[in-house]
Each structure stands twice: as structure tokens, then as C-alpha cells.
């Protein structure tokens, strides 16, 4: 077994699994926090069985010395608190002969699917060690084992453990600390799988989920009103936001359904208060009509869509990027608006902050496409500071010749009256209207207002943030949203194999920066569009906008498992061979 042989990212991947009540997730969460305390970067994903609560679960971590945003293709270490129903996760836990499996001597034989990997097996009396401590639990022993193998320091681990379990009472936290120490020492005679460098002198890292980061970005963008209806996997963003909105003088309203929530946003925003909601596919579908109203009446608002497996109820707890079509095209009539997608957990904060500012400045709808992977996974990341954009909504009476809410201006942007302003009273309308806002079906007003609403979006200067770009080369991997992290890592690996690879990751999907993107793509020899959905939605969307050459290729597959970097590398290599 070697350290970090698989990638040039110096990382280690660890999974902890167990059946209902075994505490695998708690173990993972404390380990992640200890990783942060050690100044390491990390990522933790969790997988759950179909049970509503208390079913089997797996905590999947990756730790590294450099920032990382995706899981690896293999696990270096798998610790089983027990092996019940492990088959459920087998696909998600690829092992190699280099891997190490830690099993509890008391919990019986390893499942065949694991043995097949020919990984090394280390049997330890985990439960027995825990039982020797009053109130001791196996998962804490496992935590100690994992932490040692990950190269963490015992003292700091104990501090973190006690802090994390403080609210369980001192007895529990002390018993846990004892277990952790016991587990740590039980493997001390083995070689560590990972050896962190001494923490550099850098600001403390953040332990944050994408949902939390979106919430934070929203607040920074100026959101002070949220109306929402709970839905997996978006609810925890709303739960994070509720108390914090209050602290900054805003409010959250739990609506009776998504039809209500989107219309509540329109009302609040009409009232001058920046407004946002979070939902997932089924909720976004229900909001379609309301979003069209916001576009037509030019009332800004932001929807964070934390995508899950679709169609219909689909797979609520798993990730997919299959709501792009709906986000871009899902309103009746010609209804141009903004669609953005954050490129990592950390980027959720930036992209959401930008989305709010853009929606406000452009008086339109911004849909932010994150997904279950970004939203519910936790990352140990560099701090994500506010971008402090200058963009603001244009309000009040701007010209001398009377107030015209929907005046045709050169940049398409007319000024919004806000209730309370006596000089710009108007009635907002989803009916087609003239410049004053009066309903009109004249042959002249409709095309003029359609053009206004499109033009304000297309003539705007979005600056450099619409994409992230890395590298040069004959191969160009084009991607968007949550798949970006795996693509960036795949490109790094390809470069080590002497395949010069450029990555273009789109943060702004609509309006697509057509000309700029075409220019960027012109020199590329072989373009592949990588995304996590069945029908290659982005690939076709890019074709729709005529930015791709005829021979561009598509790397699209559905969830429920996100793209892994090695999988992309293989596909690129295969496509080279063809």
C-alpha cells in the first residue's frame, strides 16, 4: 500500500458504513472537523438507505493537502461498523487491491462484493473495545482508527470530539473521547495511510455545505425575504437561512406550496425587498407560471434549484444535473432570464451572491442550478469571502418626462417604482403592456417589450465570472455546475499523462456568452461536454446556441452517482483512441 499513488492530488479517501443507529455519519462528521482542525482540505458525502430514518448509512470522506471538490474513484480505507445491507452502497464504494478494509471481529464475515476487490483486510475487536468503556460506542473507536490512519493528531482529535459532542452532555463526550483514544492506539503500530504536512500559517478553513454557502451568498447579495416550501434536498438551506435572515432584519415565510412561495417572492420584490427561494425539480416545475410573471413584469427574484434525480419524484436523495432544460426553457412564451450554476461547494456562495445582484440589476429571474451533491455535501474549504458587487436595482423617477415603468431604454433597463415612492406609482402586469404598463395588444408594443426584456440581458457586460477556464490543449472539456470539480481533476490527471487539456466550466448558462465562448472553442481540437444527465442537456443546449462544432462529443450519463475524475479520464482516453 502506497500513499497517494492514484492521483497527483495528494488525497486519501475514507468510507465508514454501518446499519441503522450505528453512528457512521456522526463518526464521519467529527472526522471531517478534525481534518479541518489539522489545516487539511476535505469533502464529505453521505449515502443513506431508503428508510426515512435510521437505516444503513455510509459516510464518504476525502481529505487532501490541496483544495478538493469531488470524490475520488476509489476508497483507500473502508471501515465497516457492521456489514448489514452493504450491497446497497457497494456501487458507491469502489475498492482496489491497494485499499484497506477495517472490519469488526465481532461482526461476522465480509460481504463477497468487498472480498472481490482483493483489498487488504484488518480485523479489529471494535465493539469489544468500545464495550470496555461505560457508555462507549463502536463508531467512536472507528473514529480513532480512521483518524490515526489519516495521519491526524490525537490531542487535537480529542478536542474536536469533545467540542462536537458537547451538547450530548459530559458523560457521553468523555466516554467518546476514551473510545477515540482507544481506537487511535489500536492501530498505532501500523503505517499511516496519509501524512499531513505541518499546517501552514493560513486562515482557518471553513466547514460548510453547498446549501449553507448558497444561503450565505444570498444574504450577501442582499436577500432579506425568503418564502419557501420544504423539499429534499433543499430544505436544509432554508433551515439554515431562517434564523440568520432574522438576524440581519429579514424574514422567512413557510408557504403552503410552491405556487404560493414564488408569488410571495414576487410580492416582496415588488415591495423593494430582494427575495429568494430554494427548491428542487418538482417545486421548480410548479413555479414555472410564477417565474413567467416575474419575467414579464420585470420583478427580480432568485430561485436556488437543488437538483435531484428526475424525472418526477425521481430519486430525491441523489444528485443529477437534469433540470437544465427546465431552468432554461421552462416558461411559456418568450421569457428570457438568467440561469447560473456554482462550480463547487465553496463557489455556491459566490455564484449565489452574483445571481442575486444580477437579478436585481437586470430586474429579472435568476435560477441557480446546484444539486444534491453540492448542496448536501460538506467541504473543508478556503474561506469564501463576499465579492461585494456594486450591482443594484435601478429605482425611482429617473427622467423628467413622467414615469414610465417599462420605458424602452438603450440598455433595456427601465427604473422600478417602489411602493412608498409617490412619483412612480404604477401597476405591474403580466399582460403585455406599453411603456406605462397599460395592457396592450397593439402590434407595436409586444415586439418592443419582448425585445426590451431580451436586450437588457444580452447587452449586459457580465465581466469575467461567466466561466472558469484552466489549461490549454488539444482536448477541451466543457462542463458546468457540480460536475466541474471532477472535470478539473480529470484534466490534471490527463496532463500528467501528457494530454494537454483545457477545461471550460460555465457558471453563467443563460444568457450564454455565445461569441466569447465560440472564440474560446475555435482552437480546440476535440471538445467533450461533460454533464450528469441522460439526454445530454447542456450539449444540446450549446448546439442550440451554435457554439459547438459539428464533431464535438458528449460525455453525459445520468445519476445517481456523480462523475468521478478517473471515469472522465478513461472516457477521454477512449475517445482519443477512436
Amino acid at each position, binding site marked *: 500500500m502506497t500513499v497517494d499513488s492514484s492521483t497527483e492530488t495528494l488525497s486519501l479517501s475514507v468510507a465508514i458504513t454501518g446499519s441503522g443507529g450505528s453512528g457512521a455519519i456522526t463518526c464521519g462528521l467529527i472526522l471531517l472537523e478534525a481534518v479541518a482542525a489539522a489545516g487539511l482540505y476535505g469533502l464529505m458525502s453521505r449515502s443513506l438507505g431508503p428508510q426515512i430514518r435510521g437505516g444503513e448509512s455510509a459516510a464518504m470522506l476525502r481529505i487532501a493537502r490541496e483544495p478538493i471538490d469531488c470524490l475520488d474513484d476509489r476508497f483507500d480505507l473502508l471501515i465497516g461498523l457492521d456489514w448489514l445491507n452493504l450491497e446497497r452502497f457497494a456501487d458507491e464504494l469502489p475498492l482496489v487491491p491497494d485499499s484497506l478494509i477495517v472490519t469488526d471481529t465481532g461482526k461476522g464475515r465480509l460481504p463477497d462484493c468487498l472480498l472481490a476487490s482483493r483489498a487488504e483486510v484488518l480485523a479489529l475487536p471494535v465493539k469489544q473495545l468500545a464495550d470496555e468503556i461505560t457508555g462507549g460506542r463502536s463508531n467512536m473507536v472507528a473514529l480513532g482508527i480512521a483518524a490515526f490512519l489519516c495521519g491526524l493528531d490525537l490531542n487535537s482529535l480529542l478536542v474536536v470530539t469533545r467540542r462536537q459532542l458537547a451538547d450530548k452532555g459530559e458523560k457521553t463526550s468523555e466516554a467518546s473521547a476514551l473510545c477515540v483514544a482507544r481506537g487511535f492506539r489500536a492501530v498505532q503500530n501500523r503505517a499511516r495511510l496519509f501524512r499531513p504536512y505541518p499546517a501552514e500559517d493560513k486562515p482557518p478553513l471553513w466547514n460548510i455545505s453547498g446549501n449553507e454557502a448558497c444561503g450565505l451568498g444570498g444574504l450577501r447579495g442582499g436577500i432579506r425575504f425568503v418564502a419557501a416550501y420544504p423539499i429534499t434536498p433543499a430544505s436544509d438551506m432554508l433551515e439554515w437561512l431562517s434564523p440568520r435572515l432574522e438576524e440581519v432584519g429579514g424574514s422567512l415565510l413557510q408557504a403552503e406550496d410552491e405556487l404560493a412561495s414564488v408569488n410571495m417572492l414576487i410580492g416582496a*420584490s415588488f415591495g423593494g425587498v430582494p427575495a429568494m427561494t430554494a427548491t428542487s425539480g418538482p417545486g421548480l416545475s410548479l413555479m414555472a407560471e410564477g417565474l413567467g410573471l416575474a419575467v414579464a413584469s420585470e420583478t427580480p427574484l432568485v430561485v436556488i434549484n437543488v437538483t435531484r434525480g428526475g424525472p418526477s419524484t425521481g430519486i430525491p436523495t441523489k444528485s443529477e444535473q437534469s433540470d437544465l432544460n427546465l431552468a432554461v426553457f421552462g416558461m411559456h412564451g418568450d421569457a428570457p432570464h438568467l440561469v447560473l450554476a456554482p462550480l463547487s461547494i465553496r463557489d455556491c456562495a459566490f455564484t449565489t451572491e452574483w445571481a442575486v445582484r444580477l437579478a436585481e440589476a437586470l430586474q429579472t429571474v435568476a435560477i441557480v442550478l446546484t444539486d444534491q451533491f453540492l448542496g448536501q455535501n460538506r467541504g473543508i474549504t478556503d474561506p469564501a469571502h463576499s465579492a461585494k458587487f456594486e450591482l443594484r436595482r435601478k429605482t425611482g423617477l429617473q427622467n423628467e418626462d413622467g414615469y414610465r415603468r417599462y420605458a424602452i431604454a438603450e440598455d433595456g433597463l427601465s427604473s422600478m417604482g417602489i*411602493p*412608498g415612492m409617490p412619483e412612480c406609482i404604477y401597476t405591474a402586469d403580466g399582460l403585455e403592456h406599453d411603456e406605462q404598463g397599460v395592457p396592450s395588444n397593439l402590434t407595436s408594443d409586444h415586439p418592443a417589450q419582448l425585445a426590451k426584456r431580451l436586450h437588457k440581458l444580452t447587452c449586459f457586460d457580465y465581466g469575467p465570472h461567466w466561466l472558469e477556464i484552466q489549461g490549454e490543449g488539444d482536448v477541451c472539456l466543457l462542463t458546468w455546475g457540480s460536475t466541474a470539480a471532477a472535470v478539473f481533476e480529470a484534466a490534471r490527471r490527463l496532463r500528467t499523462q501528457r494530454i494537454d487539456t483545457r477545461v471550460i466550466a460555465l457558471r453563467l448558462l443563460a444568457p450564454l456568452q455565445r461569441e466569447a465562448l465560440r472564440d474560446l472553442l475555435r482552437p480546440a481540437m476535440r471538445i467533450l461536454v461533460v454533464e450528469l444527465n441522460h439526454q445530454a442537456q447542456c450539449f444540446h443546449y450549446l448546439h442550440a446556441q451554435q457554439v459547438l462544432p459539428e464533431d464535438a462529443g458528449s460525455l453525459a450519463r445520468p445519476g445517481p452517482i456523480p462523475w468521478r475524475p478517473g471515469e472522465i479520464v478513461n472516457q477521454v482516453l477512449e475517445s482519443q483512441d477512436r
Partner: protein
Amino acid sequence: MNASLPLQAKDYKSSIKPVWCPGCGHYAVFNALTKALAHLGLAREEVALISGIGCSSRLPAYLNTYGFHGIHGRALPLASGLKAARPELTVVAAGGDGDGFSIGGNHFLHACRRNMDLTYIVMDNEVYGMTKGQASPTTAPEWTQSKLTPHGTGIPRFRPAAIALAAGAGFIARGFSGKPADLAKLLVEAIKYKGFAFVHVLSPCRTFRPEQKGWKEQVHSGDPELHDPLQVTNCIQSDDGLTLGVLYRHPMSVWQPILQHPGSLEQIE
């Protein structure tokens, strides 16, 4: 116009000509509302009229206040969002029986429960006027004039006051566009009431329900204003739907978002 002079009813009217048919009941509701606003002396920029879609829902553009002509059935959530964000505004939602009780029924239920300080005016003509005469929830089951339901709907009427009461509304009144002065008074009461005030207005559709001119003879006033939910329940349960006046008024705790003095964002980060 000098803002310091008290505004008159006509000052609340915009210059846009209503699309309504001659004789439509909605004109009187419009007039009564402007009278009520004038009576209350509200600044035009502090009032917002929110509606859905329907003949009745065309109201906002005819007023010279802020307004939002939204989408079918969603006036109440839009109004609720506005009120939650801007509690100091006077927010009035208005629309028709189709808008409010058919497609908008769920929001009606939950707005009654939530009890924000809003006024909701439903101009009930027992028909979908805008889409040319189909049955609405308040249409009598035996009304056969819609080609969509040529045998009548066969479904008992929706009883707005009974539902509002069961859902928890604290102010329920019924007006008639044929008695505009009384209606204006009811609207004043409704707007003044702290909480969700539901005003059910009988507002005939001249075009598709010409027989509603008979309402003039049928409406009547009810018992003196009741405050006890149980008594009122009995009353509304046995009501013929043509009783005018404030049917129920009960002080209730008003929902509004907890708006703290804003702290800094940094402390969250």
C-alpha cells in the same frame, strides 16, 4: 395635485378606461373602493392593490395606487409576500370567485389561517366572466347556461363565508355592488380591521348572468354583528348567501414576520 389636500375618491382613479361591459357590477366595487380609500385618507403610494386574472382582477390598473395584476389564483400569496416584506403598506387583494375560490382556493384557506393584516375583496358573480361564462365554485348546481356543463355542475355551491370562518378568518363581511355606499363602509371597516379581512361582494355579471339583476330584491341584512364563533358558525351555516353586512368580527393575533433590528452579516460568517 397638492399632496397636502385631502384626496377625494376620484383622485384614486387612474386614467385607464375599464374593459368591463356596461352594467357590470365591478364598476361599483371600484367606485366603493376609491371612496373607502379617500375616507381613510390613505396616501396613494402607501396603498397596493394586488389581483389575479379575471374581469374583476383588472381592478388595479384603474386605481391610481401601486398595483400588481398577477396571475390567475395567486393574488393572495403575492399580497402576503408584499405585506411580509413591507408591513407598513396598506395591502388589498382583489379578484373574482373563480380566481379566489377555484384555482386560488388553497391560498384562500391559508391566508385565512395565517391572518396577516390584509384585506381581500372577492367580487362574486357566480361565473367565470373573463373566459365567457363557465360555472365557478359559487355557481348553483342547476345552472345550465354553460356549454361546458350543459346539465349544470351538479355540485353544491362553495360557501365562501363558511370556509373563511372554518379556516380561521377574523373578519368576514358581505357586500353588494348594488348598494355601493354600504359597500364603501364595509371596505373601510375591512381595511381598518387588524388582520385578514374577507369581503365577499355580490357583483353581478351583466353579460353571462343577466338574471342576477334579481339580487337587488333578494339581498337583506342579517343579525346584528356577531362575535362568538359558535353563534356565527350557526348563522353562516344556515345563511342563504345573500345576507349583507359584517358577518363576523373577532380580534385575533395578527401574523407578521419577526423583523429584528438588523445585525451585521459578518457575525453570521
